[in-house]
Each structure stands twice: as C-alpha cells, then as structure tokens.
C-alpha cells in the first residue's frame, strides 16, 4: 500500500549548540534574561540553506509548517507567524505544530499531508527551538509539566525519571546492565565527534558514562541527551514539482505514526514502548521494507534506555536483547547490525526539541547522497529510517526515506 509520492527537495541544518543567554535591563530597568539567539536568527540558519539547496525562491513556497515545542522556550507566542514572516514566506498559509519532542517530525508529517492531499505543491517544514537561555532545572520543569499533573508531576516525575522507570524495569526483567546502557552514549559521542553540526564533540568512555553523576537512578548524566538551541528545515514537494526541479529528491516511502497512554502506570509493560512498535509497523508496511532493508537509522535517544528500546521496538534486534545488541556494536558502521545515530544522536549532536525530527531527516538525506563527514559516512545507503518520540511514546513518528 504505497502512499502518495512526496519528496524532500531541500535541506538546511544549523549547528546545534549552546547559544546561552544575555542578561540586560528591560524597559523598566529591571534585570531580565533573554535568549542570546532568538528563533528568528535560528530559523534563518536552516531555512535559507534549504531554499538554496532546493534551487527555488520564496515565491515557489506555497505553505509553511513550523515546529516549536514550547512557547516558554521560544519566548514568543504565535511562533509560526513570526518565523514565516522572518524568512519571508509572507501571505502564504502557516501553522505551528506541537507534539513535545516529536514536534519536528510532526511538522514533516503535516507538510506531507498538505502535499499528499493535493492542497499544495511545495511546503517548508521548519523546526526551531531556543532552550539554553533557561536554567537546566527550569528547562526540566517545562518538560516535566507534560506529565499528568494530578498523578505524576506532583511527585516530581521529571522526564529523566519517566525513562529511569523503564530502565529499572528492563534491568530487572531483561537483564539489561549498566555497562550495556553506557555503550549507547559512547557510540553517540564517537560519531558526534566527527559531525560539524554537533553540540558536544567529545569522545567518552564506558567508565565516563557509568561513573557520571546520577540524575534519576538508574540513569546518570551521560544517559541523558543535551538541552540545545538549533533549527532544521526541509523543503518538500509533490512528485510533479520534484521532478521539475534539478536537484536530487529523497522520497518519503513510509510515514508511520502512533501514540501511547498518557500515564506511565497505564502501560501494560515498561520494558518496551508499544507506540514505537505500532508506528514502525505502519512505516514498514507502507514502504514494503523491513528492518533488514534499513542501511542507516536515526532513533530518538533522549536517554540511553530509549535508544535500547527503539532497537527492539523497530525490529533491529530481538525483544529483550537491545542491551546485548548495543554492546556487540550492532549500531556501529563497521558493526554487525544497522548503523544508528551516526550523526551523534540527541546525546552528542543535541536536541533542540522542535528541530530534532527534521534534523534527523536532513542527516539521512546527506547519508543517502554521500555528503556527510567521511568518518561517519555509511557506504551505499539506499534506505534510511528516522524515529522521533514525544514524551515517552505519547507521540511517535517513524519515516522511511529512499532516493
């Protein structure tokens, strides 16, 4: 059951990083904290490279979909209208989408639907987030308030805590070990070190990861992804328009999407995320592909345990064996499995919420057309998979991409 043909025809990716804050007096003379870089400048950094890559101008863009996960991070309401105005897509429809950390991929899914329906021919999906101007504890707060206020938030269940509940359960049930968990960030940093767009370009060891400070045990600092500023853009086009353009199209052949229960205690098990499984199955079925066909994958490694579960949920390895698969270098380019997060993932490349899911697709495009740094280039990529999760499975998007 093939889906309507829609292509990625242009890509842009800012460097992810910590742009930080500035403290200055506001109009009343009070000291106030502002983002050092705003969503305006950040959107520019990915949008115009994408437009240029597609070989088109703003006149050719029919609509924009803007991914911003939280207005409190952006410091701006109605962010879609601001971003569209800032990059000059004025007088064309725009909208903001939000599905927590899966916001970026939802912008792509929404743009896809606008084109697949025949409503528009060329749509820009722009993801942007400014996070590092806020303190880590406030940023943690902003993400934690997505938990159920009545039953979860008031007990101090932060996002690391949700995932630590999975980790503790998986250690007890599946025999996942501390060392196996640590193999995930070690790999992410190994490849992120070579990625010019990555935020934290530093190699780490198993000992660094296993010995880092506890955040929400069993999870430690190096199990947790970064808080980042960044943006990513893809220009998408209908089959007809894509073929008129001179560039190299990348086709979305599978768009699987799913969800899961709101409360963590309502999940039947905490060793896997069933929303991942469902979204993966849809994407595989639409594209006629299976995990065996995937040459490079980008999975949502907000925490090491999330990447381990994704290996299992997407069928890269057997259920319950994700830790072993990781320890056996299953996700390395020269390993026996599927090269995964060879851009550094959320852990080393960074996680600017609204941009993350788009950034994955941008890197997949570059892998397929052989334009990433040579140390992290997977040879002969024909099929790529991206997997982007909001909260802990409440929103999941899985895409299959092929030239």
């Amino acid at each position: 059951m093939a889906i309507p043909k829609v292509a990625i025809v242009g890509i842009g990716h800012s460097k992810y990083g910590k742009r930080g804050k500035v403290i200055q007096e506001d109009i009343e003379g009070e000291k106030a904290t502002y983002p050092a870089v705003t969503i305006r400048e950040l959107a520019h950094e990915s949008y115009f490279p994408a437009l240029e890559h597609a070989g088109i101008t703003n006149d050719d863009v029919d609509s924009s979909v803007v991914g911003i996960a939280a207005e409190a991070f952006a410091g701006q309401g109605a962010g879609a209208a601001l971003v569209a105005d800032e990059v000059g897509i004025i007088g064309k429809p725009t909208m903001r989408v939000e599905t927590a950390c899966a916001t970026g991929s939802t912008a792509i899914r929404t743009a896809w639907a606008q084109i697949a329906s025949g409503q528009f021919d060329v749509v820009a999906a722009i993801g942007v987030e400014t996070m590092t101007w806020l303190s880590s504890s406030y940023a943690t707060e902003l993400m934690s308030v997505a938990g159920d206020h009545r039953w979860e938030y008031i007990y101090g269940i932060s996002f690391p805590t949700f995932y630590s509940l999975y980790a503790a359960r998986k250690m007890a049930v599946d025999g996942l070990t501390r060392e196996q968990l640590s193999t995930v960030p070690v790999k992410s940093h190994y490849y992120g070190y070579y990625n010019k767009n990555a935020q934290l370009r530093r190699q780490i060891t198993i000992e660094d990861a296993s010995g880092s400070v506890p955040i929400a045990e069993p999870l430690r600092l190096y199990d947790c992804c970064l808080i980042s500023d960044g943006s990513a853009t893809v220009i998408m086009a209908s089959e007809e328009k894509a073929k008129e353009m001179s560039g190299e199209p990348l086709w979305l052949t599978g768009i699987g999407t799913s969800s899961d229960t709101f409360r963590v205690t309502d999940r039947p098990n905490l060793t896997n995320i069933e929303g991942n499984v469902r979204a993966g199955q849809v994407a595989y079925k639409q594209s006629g592909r299976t995990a065996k066909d995937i040459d490079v994958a980008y999975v949502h490694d907000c925490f090491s345990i999330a990447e381990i579960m994704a290996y299992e949920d997407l069928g890269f390895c057997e259920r319950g064996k994700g830790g072993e698969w990781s320890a056996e270098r299953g996700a390395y380019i020269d390993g026996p499995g599927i090269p995964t997060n060879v851009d550094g993932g959320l852990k080393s490349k960074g996680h600017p919420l609204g941009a993350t899911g788009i950034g994955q697709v941008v890197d997949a495009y570059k892998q397929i057309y052989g334009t990433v740094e040579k140390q992290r280039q997977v040879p002969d990529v024909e099929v790529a998979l991206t997997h982007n999760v909001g909260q802990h499975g409440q929103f999941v998007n899985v895409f299959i991409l092929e030239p």
Partner: protein
Amino acid sequence: MSEREMGFVVELSSDVKNRQRMTADFRKFISGLEEGKFLATKCGKCGKKFMPPRFTCPCGGTDLEWFEVNPEGTLYTWSIVHFAPEGIAKQTNVPYVLGVIDFEDELRLAAHMKGLTSKPKVGMKVKIAPQELENGNVAYFIKPA
C-alpha cells in the same frame, strides 16, 4: 542503614501545587484516603478497572463504580531522583525515591517511597499507605511491606 544515612528521606511538601482542579470525583478518591482506603473505579459498561481512577471510560461508559484496592503489592519499578524539576526542587529535598506499586489486576500507582533500608528492588513486597501532611492534606507513600 537508615533512610537518613542513605540520603533519601522524603519530606513531601504540602505546598506543591496540583494544577488540576479538585473535582467532585477526585475528592471522592481523597476522601477514601482520609479513611485509609485506596479507591479505584470500574466501568459499569465494559468492566475495565482503573487506578488511578478514571471517572469516564474510554469505551464511552460514564457509569463507573468505586471499589477498594488491596494496598499491598509488589514494586513494579523505581527511580532515585537526584535532580528535580524546578517547581518540585523548591519544595522537596533530593534525592527522593519514586516507586510504582503493582496491585492485583495489573493496577498500578506511582508515589514517593519511604522506610527503605536499602536501595529499592523490582519485585520487593510493598504496601501503600495514606499519610496526613503538616497542612492537613493527605498524601500517600509506598513502603516496604
């Protein structure tokens, strides 16, 4: 080793604001706690049971009846939280231990843990008990059975 020596004494603050309104249904759950009972709901239409209690059923049923859950169970999973969200950090000491108790019928509830003399273990026998806070509100904690 005592809780204090292990560094995770829960002093659950009375001041953490629950941003969701106290509805009549939720008040019923709290009233149960005040009587020492953990109340869950069961849909009169499809029979599904809910803990935390839901007051409408995803099957469309709106006629849910209350029933009391045996407060003893096993520890389904746990976390020792060293870095709390800002709104919580102002009110609660870190580290604190969070547990999920597995009651009968696969019903579960998340709460802070108290009374641990070693690190929590998945599968350990635990019970959940209400406790009045300083301000007169009532909360609940998971403790070793």
